[in-house]
């Protein structure tokens, strides 16, 4: 638990005597406000990272919530704290896979983490049911990328904050930065509809 930014005053934390996590004192909400302002706009890479601790970097809650919503039966609802929680779990998952993959890279004296490392890490960590579908998705992705080399740069307006509602997604959005130099370092893609690839089996999560 952090000694620097925590407070024991319940009123400052904004809790009204409701539940809060036993070990995390500072709720996810507070962190979200601080961390994401820097993350929504610039992807500077150099300065912006200094203020962020590893655990502060999350994926946008709107995207996460949408995926969750599409996964559960239509009549189901999702509590707000569940969405925030999954946001954190996601960062944890990414770090989990990445460190496993990174370790393997080091063992084999390689510097770049490649696709195989990621797939192997997933197998090792109990996510081998993802591997086959992922290979298919990767194939489609590569094909899509090939077709894009001719498209010129488009700017993305990062007006997409954390308050995206479902309505926002029914309208076409400017999609992402697609550079023509082949680097593709800041590709950010938002789709307006979550599409299933024909031929890829639906994963059964029983």
């Amino acid at each position: 638990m952090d000694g620097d930014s925590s407070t024991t005053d319940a009123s400052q934390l904004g809790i009204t005597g409701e539940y809060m996590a036993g070990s995390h004192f500072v709720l996810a909400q507070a962190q979200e406000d601080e961390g994401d302002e820097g993350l929504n706009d610039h992807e500077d890479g150099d300065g912006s990272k200094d203020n962020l601790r590893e655990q502060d970097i999350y994926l946008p809650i709107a995207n996460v919530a949408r995926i969750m919503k599409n996964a559960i039966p239509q009549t189901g609802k999702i509590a707000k704290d569940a969405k925030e929680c999954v946001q954190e779990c996601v960062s944890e998952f990414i770090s989990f896979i990445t460190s496993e993959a990174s370790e393997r890279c080091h063992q084999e004296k390689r510097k770049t983490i490649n696709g195989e490392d990621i797939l192997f890490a997933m197998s090792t960590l109990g996510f081998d049911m993802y591997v086959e579908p992922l290979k298919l998705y990767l194939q489609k992705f590569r094909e899509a990328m090939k077709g894009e080399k001719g498209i010129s740069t488009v700017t993305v307006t990062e007006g997409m904050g954390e308050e995206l509602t479902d309505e926002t997604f029914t309208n076409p959005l400017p999609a992402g930065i697609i550079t023509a130099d082949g680097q593709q370092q800041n590709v950010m893609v938002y789709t307006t509809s979550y599409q299933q690839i024909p031929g890829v089996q639906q994963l059964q999560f029983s």
Partner: protein
Amino acid sequence: MSAKNMEKVEQATNRKNISLPMSRVRLIMKSSPDVSCINQDALFLTTKATELFVQHLALSSYKNGSGKETNTLSYSDLANAAEESETFQFLTDILPKKILAREYLKSLEEMEKDADNL
């Protein structure tokens, strides 16, 4: 940006078939110690896997919890899923079962008392 350009871009992104920002995923990956370079395939796979993970976690937790009347996916459903499933065990540290604020503050006071007595 012209309408035609926008259309092209949209088609392209739909074909890529992901709905999470890869640049953000990359940021999270880079925050792991000793990570130097991540190739494009690895980044895509991680992003896509993350989507699958969200679906997996949400659905599993929801199913576990839907024995009750409410059809809402709650925090405790997630915490239970982490505890009960081997796949999600790695989440148990960040998904502690919640306690009431006043209980926590009480135990904090008691801890401080103990520290004073030492």
